[in-house]
């Protein structure tokens, strides 16, 4: 029981640190660097390696913090992260293995696209349909491209670290025995 409480506290602390960095530091970085989406990276990482329950818990913690810090309407980050998680989860469950870097990349790309589409649509709805929806503009797709590039890099990094740390991803080969 105590161990579980400790795990939850550590998880919440990680979320607090990540949300603070995303909110204050990454947002103030120049050019392409402010397109790093730490929340989305961690979400897909958790979904891929620890499953849907842990991912949902992450959405709660990180989403609540971002919704509290940010001036977007409350539940904006919850919804964007949840939609990205659902899309990634369905793809992961039905079509992909969770033991391949390529699967990891596909998940990241899908999650980035879905997250940004959700964010663009929600902003458009919240602004009472004023102006153009975000996804009809060049800047939207440019940002999706930058985010995807960052996420692909992050995925490669996360995956290789995991390969080193866990046996789950060790490659195995069927050896052809002589005489058969």
């Amino acid at each position, binding site marked *: 029981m105590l161990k579980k409480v400790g795990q939850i506290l550590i998880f919440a602390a990680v979320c607090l640190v990540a949300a603070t960095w995303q909110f204050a530091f990454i947002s*103030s970085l120049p050019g392409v660097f402010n397109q790093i989406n730490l929340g989305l990276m961690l979400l897909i990482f958790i979904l891929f390696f620890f499953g849907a329950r842990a991912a949902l818990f992450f959405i709660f913690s990180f989403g609540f913090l971002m*919704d509290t810090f940010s001036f977007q309407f409350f539940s904006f980050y919850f919804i964007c992260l949840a939609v990205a998680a659902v899309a990634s989860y369905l793809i992961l469950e039905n079509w992909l293995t969770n033991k391949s870097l390529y699967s990891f990349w596909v998940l990241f790309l899908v999650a980035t696209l879905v997250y940004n589409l959700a964010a663009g649509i929600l902003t458009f709805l919240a602004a009472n349909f004023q102006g153009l929806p975000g996804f009809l503009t060049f800047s*939207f797709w440019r940002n999706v491209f930058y985010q995807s590039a960052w996420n692909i890099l992050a995925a490669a990094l996360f995956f290789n670290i995991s390969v080193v740390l866990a046996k789950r991803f060790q490659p195995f080969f069927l050896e052809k025995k002589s005489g058969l």
Partner: protein
Amino acid sequence: MIRIKKNNPWLIFTVVLGLLVFLHGIGVIRPLENALLFLIKPVSSKLYVWGTGVSSSYSENREKADLLSEINRLQQTVAALTIQDSHWREVEGENEKLRGQLNFVAANKFRVVLANIIAKEESFSATENSRDLVINRGQKDGLRPDYGVLSPDGAIIGKIVEVNDTSSRICLVTSPGCQLAASLQNEDKTKGITDGNLGLTINMNYIPQLEKIALGDMVITSGLGGNIPRGLVIGKVSEVKSESNEVWQAAIIEPLVNLNDLTVVSIVIP
């Protein structure tokens, strides 16, 4: 028939999310939210300063660092002197008009609240490069929407668009949709409304063709609209768009301060 498991995590998530939104709506979790903001504010402020430092050094060319810093220093001096000059011109003009009415100086003495910028708010809207700033002061410090925000040099850099208990969101004068009642310091004292353009410059549209605008004319707040006092410098005219067959002309205004390097601002309490 679709059967839903009782302990389905997605279902639990949806229910708890709904509950959380409801509790937020009625304000029950506001103390928790304020406590979290209070907890992260000092760290956010430091992180933002770091980020801005990285941003500044990134944008500078290393080989020309000395030259750039000298240019920057001179630009800052010019900006400060131009602002000062503009203030004096405004004061002089007002003095002539009001013929020594004693309450004029009092009218320009406004109270300010200093604030640290703690983040840039990401915008997912269609407008490019429109990132609002978040400061560590809010309703509890007496801030309200539409109050003007000044740079350390005294130029107006934007206005408050949204306030929470302990933080506020500021739109920059260069952000589309961030409008200020403005006046040109030309012969005609042309009045109009400025609006941000692509996060880079400021537009002043719908100026009658007969009004004379020159490059370098200073643009100040007109004081119309209530919460922002008259005479705060917005920028100077860098381009005039005037077609003889058009009813209106437009001016493009350059802000005098670098809006990307700000870490501290002051809010004018009218």
